[in-house]
């Protein structure tokens, strides 16, 4: 084996390590989230134990002030986090890709206007936009939070889509397709989307992590899913007052949150490396 080939093999292994680590971390959360649909250690609202019990065989990460099992709450937190991530990214993708493609195909001045609007929207932090959307709706709920985050994310997706699509549209094969009479919808479906999809999906994985953190922040501020939805952000907020007497109540949701976000980011990294055309060419 040549030296170059050997380096390449080592790099490959590193790539796949990132991908696997990410997949495992995210996978754990997915398994837990699916499990909550059929089984939970305790009824989440049942005050099954005493006040702030330390971890034990009965309560793996102890109980909260009301004596509810924290592990149960954390499991439900996984489900809520994944719902938020998937939901927000899906909404962001639909709105963002549509807008981005429109901009890419639009006449000059409409494209400029859309691009400027997107740039302004991106200047606002995701959390701020989400807070505005939640404030505009009457009551805070999990679905408003998801919609709010989806809208906030769509600006980022739209800008990326526009840039990627424009790059594709400059290619010779697009000109060829146009001259041969392919409709613009056909161009989008046959040429543009398949070309930009790999880059977009890496971006979606990153947005997913962003959405999960933003939802935790919203819940921490009391703007996310209302109680008794056991969002990690709300668990953190509730544990804040008891952080000295029962630190596990704050640590556990923190670890859960970080593990999912890191997992998602590793997955994104791994995906990017796996699909990176420059690397494949070497």
């Amino acid at each position, binding site marked *: 084996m040549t030296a170059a080939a050997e380096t390449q093999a080592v790099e490959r292994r590193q790539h796949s390590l990132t991908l696997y680590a990410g997949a495992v971390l995210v996978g754990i959360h997915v398994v837990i989230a699916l499990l909550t649909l059929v089984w939970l250690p305790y009824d989440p609202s049942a005050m099954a134990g005493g006040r702030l019990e330390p971890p034990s065989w009965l309560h793996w990460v102890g109980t909260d002030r009301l004596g509810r099992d924290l592990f149960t709450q954390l499991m439900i937190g996984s489900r809520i986090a994944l719902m938020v991530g998937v939901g927000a990214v899906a909404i962001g993708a639909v709105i963002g890709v549509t807008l981005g493609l429109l901009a890419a195909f639009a006449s000059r001045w409409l494209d400029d206007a859309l691009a400027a609007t997107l740039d302004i929207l991106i200047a606002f932090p995701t959390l701020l936009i989400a807070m505005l959307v939640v404030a505009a709706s009457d009551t805070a709920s999990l679905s408003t939070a998801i919609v709010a985050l989806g809208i906030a994310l769509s600006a980022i997706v739209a800008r990326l889509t526009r840039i990627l699509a424009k790059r594709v549209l400059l290619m010779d094969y697009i000109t060829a397709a146009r001259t041969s009479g392919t409709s613009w919808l056909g161009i989008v479906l046959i040429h543009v989307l398949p070309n930009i999809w790999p880059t977009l999906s890496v971006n979606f994985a990153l947005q997913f992590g962003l959405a999960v953190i933003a939802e935790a922040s919203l819940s921490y501020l*009391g703007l996310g899913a209302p109680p008794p939805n056991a969002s990690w952000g709300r668990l953190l907020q509730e544990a804040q007052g008891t952080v000295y007497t029962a630190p596990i109540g704050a640590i556990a949701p923190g670890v859960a949150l970080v593990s999912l976000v890191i997992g998602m980011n590793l997955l994104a990294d791994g995906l990017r490396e796996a699909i990176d055309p420059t690397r494949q060419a070497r």
Partner: protein
Amino acid sequence: MRPTKILLTAALLASVAFGPGALAQDYDPGATIRIGSLYEPQNLDNTAGAGQGINEAFNGNVYEGLFTLTDAGSVEPVLVEDYAVSEDGLTYTFTLREGVTFHSGEPLTSADVKYSIERVTAEDSRSSRKRSLSTITGIETPDERTVVITLSARSISLPYNLSYVWIVNDAAGDITSAEDGTGPYTLDEWRRGSALALTRFDDYWGEAPTNGAVLFQYFTDATALNNALLTNAVDIVTSVQSPDSLAQFAGNPQFTVTEGASTTKELLAYNDRVAPFDNVQVRKALARATDKARLLNSIWGEYGTLIGSFVPPTDPWYVDLTGVDPYDPESARELLAEAGYPDGFEFTLDTPDYDPHPIVAQFLQSEYAKIGVTVNINIITANEWYTKIYQEHNFEATLQEHVNHRDIVFYGNPDFYWGYNNPEVVQLIADSEAASSEEEQTEKLTEANRIIAEDAASNWLYLYPQIVVSAANVTGYPVNGLNSQFFAYDIQKSN
């Protein structure tokens, strides 16, 4: 801060000039007492919805009343030297104390008193005691030192109610961001969002404070507040809001922890006007479905007191009514069935977004699920609470902490936000006001209290403990904090 510095310098000079023996106190008379609190006032006017924080900072410190409610719970004259009540109890003649000046330098006159009372009873006043003073029909000021108040009906608690009325200079104008009172401290500076600085008023008519200045420092977070005390950034925490932070202070000789008698009640207030809460049996059922001992333990650990009505043990008309609707889910279910809700019902619980309300709401949600009642928790801000619930009465049930002392009279007002309307209670409370002796007043209110409890007018969940933690070198602060007052003038700080 300049006046503080001058005072400090003066104290230093005095100690140098007269030697160490001249200053016999073992405390520093020029010290700044730094008080940490979670209750920053919204503005500086207690008739403009400023919140409990303004009572804490200003009552007795910056403003004084004709009377004061002492930390021990008695009513004593302050700006009144003497007063006489007519035979029929309808005319009160107050003689004002001499030599009292406002911080602006103007002397206290009867016109100021008239102005101050009218501020509280005015149309747009948001004072919680506005209604208690509604029997006042006329305020005469025959001379500079005499105020004659005429009433439409006897009002035995007039002196008590007047303790809520700040005496403000009638030339002061808008006092939402400035002050002109007669108290031992003047407002030095209000840094919105962070602190209220008070400085000793040198021309104070009474005994001078045992410290030079007071700094109320505001925190939005209890953990940050406790950390401030731990790191000596504040000297006192006015009311500890969670038992879990006490572990850091209890048993540590550097700190003193006191538990006083509080008047703060945590309440599940129903809108008694609307179904199903217009039904006594439904209200009693919910009361019996609430394991209050467990709730109190969840929130306060070993602290706090269980109550069976709105009256705390420090009020003269307290009787133990915890046995009226004891925890009994079985009978709760029966009561619901009798009331026509065998399968329970569903209601929205408007829950203020700050501790302990969200956690209490979840507790109730879980408890009531056991008797088939579904609770939908709707989190709202304190401002929303004021408009939606207090003003518009647009709610089914809500959680709220009621801090006031002797506030059972709120149940005698059918227009109050919770809409409890029992003519018998309205009459008893009116009669108690018209009583000719305190015994009679106590008797009437005890009876009213009993009926309100039998009617389960609201669900009285528990009485907060009043826990003050201070650095060990600070003494003389109020331990009960009745009405959230925090008199600072006797606080001593040694070096």
